[in-house]
């Protein structure tokens, strides 16, 4: 609340007050001087001439000080505020509210302090949010399955995540910061990959390499990429390295290639036989009739083999596309089993194996897809024959209980290592055992049997001991 008095300017207020004191002082001094000169005391006037103006001067300065006190106080505070390094509003002090000016200052100060308090709260909040975000980013960085490392221009690691250390097979406790990244990578690469890493150079384009731990890809294949990260104002570039484990993809790729190779080999072999025999029959003259007959039989057998393989390929491609369907009908189990057994008997006898079956006399009715079931059983039995040495033993046992029928294919073959066992039903999987590699196979037969069992609501289970033999059990529920 400002009065009219306070609306006038400071200069005017000061000059008015001084003028008032000056004029009144001059007036009293003149009256006093006239009075004294009338009674001839002019000589005594000298001390008064000094004292009275002095008194007025003192009084004036006192009034002036009273008037300008708050202004000076405010001025001092503002000067100090301007000169302080941090411009902290906390140093500004409110004034005792004796004056409208002080009240105004106090109100202004209160507003500023309130504002700065809000600012402080806001800052603390945003700091809290930022640090939480930073923590979250850090956690994301650490938990990425891809390994990431940032290096300075000398190629030394500045920052890395856990996966990077894990993929390089470095102990968790070891601090890799400051180490040379090329050295680290070289330690985990085979000769060929080492050469590639050394050849990276200083090219600014992103470089991608595939590095392998050893010639055997199952030991680990990694995709390594390096991206240059140019700092501000052309400072030396940091580099960002990522490392991804692509072992599984690589193995799947290899398995697929192997499958294509196997499939073409399997197609060409009977075709080569058919061509050779038919050409012989067409060109050679005077072949004894019996020999001719056996040649025709061979051509017929090879054509059958080719047709069977094509059926298998179709099954496989259906399985690959996830498109195998089954049509359940009542199955005449005895007939189906004898067909399967007779189909495989010649193969077993060629390897001089004891090929037997033990089929329970009374089997319950089974609703199943006859062709798919026969193909699955054929796969299991032909595998058993294939991976059992000459003179070994292969047996098919069929049994049932109240809920299911069990088809058990037992052999005295090479067996399966504990390492390979869990991978066995995967598509394209073939053991690296050289006894397995020596045989022709697609790595899909067991996967197919598994799929057929699954579609019937059953399963395939495997028991095996390396070099002792295996037992594959195909289980199909009765209903």
């Amino acid at each position: 609340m400002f009065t009219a008095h306070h609306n006038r300017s400071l200069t005017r207020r000061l000059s008015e007050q001084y003028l008032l004191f000056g004029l009144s002082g001059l007036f009293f001094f003149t009256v006093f001087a006239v009075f004294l000169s009338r009674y001839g005391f002019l000589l005594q006037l000298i001390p008064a001439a000094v004292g009275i103006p002095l008194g007025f001067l003192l009084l004036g300065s006192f009034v002036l000080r009273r008037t300008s006190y708050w202004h000076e106080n405010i001025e001092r505070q503002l000067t100090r505020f301007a000169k302080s390094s941090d411009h902290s509003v906390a140093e500004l002090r409110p004034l005792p509210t004796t004056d409208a000016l002080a009240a105004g200052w106090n109100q202004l100060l209160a507003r500023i302090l309130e504002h700065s308090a809000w600012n402080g709260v806001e800052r603390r909040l945003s700091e809290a949010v930022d640090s939480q975000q930073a923590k979250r980013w850090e956690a994301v960085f650490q938990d990425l399955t891809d390994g990431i490392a940032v290096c300075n221009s000398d190629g030394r690691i500045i920052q890395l995540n856990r996966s990077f250390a894990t993929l390089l097979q470095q102990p968790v406790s070891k601090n890799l910061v400051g180490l040379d990244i090329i050295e680290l990578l070289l330690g985990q690469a085979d000769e060929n990959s080492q050469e590639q890493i050394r050849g990276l150079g200083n090219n600014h384009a992103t470089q991608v390499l595939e590095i392998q731990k050893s010639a055997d890809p199952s030991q680990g294949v990694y995709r390594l990429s390096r991206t240059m990260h140019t700092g501000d104002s052309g400072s030396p570039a940091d580099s960002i390295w990522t490392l991804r484990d692509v072992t599984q993809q690589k193995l799947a790729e290899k398995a697929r290639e192997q499958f294509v190779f196997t499939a073409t080999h399997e197609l060409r072999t009977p075709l080569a036989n058919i061509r050779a025999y038919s050409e012989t029959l067409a060109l050679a003259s005077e072949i004894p009739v019996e020999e001719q007959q056996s040649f025709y039989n061979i051509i017929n057998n090879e054509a059958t083999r080719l047709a069977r393989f094509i059926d298998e390929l179709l099954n496989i491609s259906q399985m690959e596309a996830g498109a195998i369907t089954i049509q359940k009908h009542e199955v005449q189990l005895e007939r189906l089993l004898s067909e399967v057994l007779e189909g495989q008997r010649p193969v077993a006898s060629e390897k001089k194996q004891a090929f037997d079956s033990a089929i329970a006399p009374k089997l319950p009715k089974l609703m199943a897809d006859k062709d798919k079931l026969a193909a699955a059983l054929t796969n299991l039995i032909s595998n058993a024959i294939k991976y059992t040495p000459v003179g070994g033993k292969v047996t098919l046992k069929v049994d049932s209980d109240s809920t299911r029928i069990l088809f058990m294919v037992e052999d005295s073959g090479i067996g399966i290592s504990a390492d390979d066992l869990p991978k066995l039903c995967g598509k394209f999987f073939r053991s690296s055992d050289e006894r397995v590699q020596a045989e022709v196979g697609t790595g899909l037969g067991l996967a197919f049997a598994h799929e057929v069992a699954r579609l019937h609501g059953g399963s395939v289970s495997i028991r095996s001991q390396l070099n002792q033999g295996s037992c594959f059990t195909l289980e199909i529920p009765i209903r």
Partner: protein
Amino acid sequence: MSTAKRVLVAEDNVVLGDVIRFNLLRAGFATTLARTGSEALEILTEQMFDILVTDYELPGIDGEELCHRVRNELKIESLRIVMCSARGHELDRDELKTRLGIEAILFKPFSIRELIILLEDSTKTANDCGPQLISN
């Protein structure tokens, strides 16, 4: 032909091996059959042959390894080699020919007649020019 040329056939596919032998015998070659790479090596250490017809895929010692051993261990340089394979073009024909001194590579299914003509030509060249290691 004064003496029959001696051919060793290394082929693990029994039916194919049989028909190759049947035809080679009829074409006048003295033919011996081996079922594996190691069997072929054994036979080669004991007897002299003019030509080796080998499959690329053989159990144990494969065709490539067999040729390598023939050239580097048995040091038989005069032996002419014809390779057949059920592999397609993933096989580097020129590299194999140069490195192992293979005269020809046939892809299965190949023609028996083609094989016989190749062997006859090869033995003729051998008569004319003497043993030759590398030929295109």
